[in-house]
């Protein structure tokens, strides 16, 4: 099982911050595709992805228990 976190406009589009779902064995890019297909979350293509709080590339494979966070373009400061 994995925890998927969504922030800012992605969170608003999903309706909540956390989605529990098993995406282990999938690449980051695969996970994005699933979310686009099932939730019409097209904006997720602009998002960076963090796995266990570190930025990951689109080819990184998610492992069991990983926390996957979708990071829209940031605007702190």
């Amino acid at each position, binding site marked *: 099982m994995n925890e998927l*976190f969504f*922030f*800012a*406009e992605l*969170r*608003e589009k999903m309706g909540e911050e956390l989605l529990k779902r098993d995406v282990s064995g999938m690449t980051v890019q695969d996970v994005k595709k699933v979310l686009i297909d099932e939730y019409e979350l097209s904006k997720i*293509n*602009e*998002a*960076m992805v*963090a796995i266990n*709080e570190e*930025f*990951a*590339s*689109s080819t990184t494979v998610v492992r069991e228990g990983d926390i996957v*966070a979708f*990071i*829209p*373009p*940031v*605007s*702190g*400061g």
Partner: protein
Amino acid sequence: MSRNYWITESELDVQEVVTKVTRRNAGAINTFIGTVREWTGDKKTLYLEYEAYRPMAEKKLAEIGREIEKRWPDVETAIVHRIGHLEISDIAVIIAVSTPHRADSFDASRYAIERIKEIVPIWKKEHWENGEQWIGNQKETVEGAPTEGELK
């Protein structure tokens, strides 16, 4: 040891951040204070909401501190970012950098705020008179965050 990099929902206190980097070997303490601006072009902001992926945001602030330590000698940095509802002129971020001489403290402070805008998972939502929008202004990158080497 008290932490130098944190996210809070409370009002920010400049002196608290400055005190964290005050030390005998510093001849300069540079502070950057980011505040909520009312007008952006012809758009009038009523208030802002900031949101963070808090544990990662605090880690990334600390990472910026480590980057600074690699680039400038004998430097101490503290950074705090506020989240939640902020009114016009409220302080959103404070950076304090102390160094033996002034030039490095200016440079490191500038570096810190530019990096915050690239790698720290914090978002602001602008609320205007006639609408609202999440703002995204990082580099146009999808494949992970920009690395230190990519920065000028």
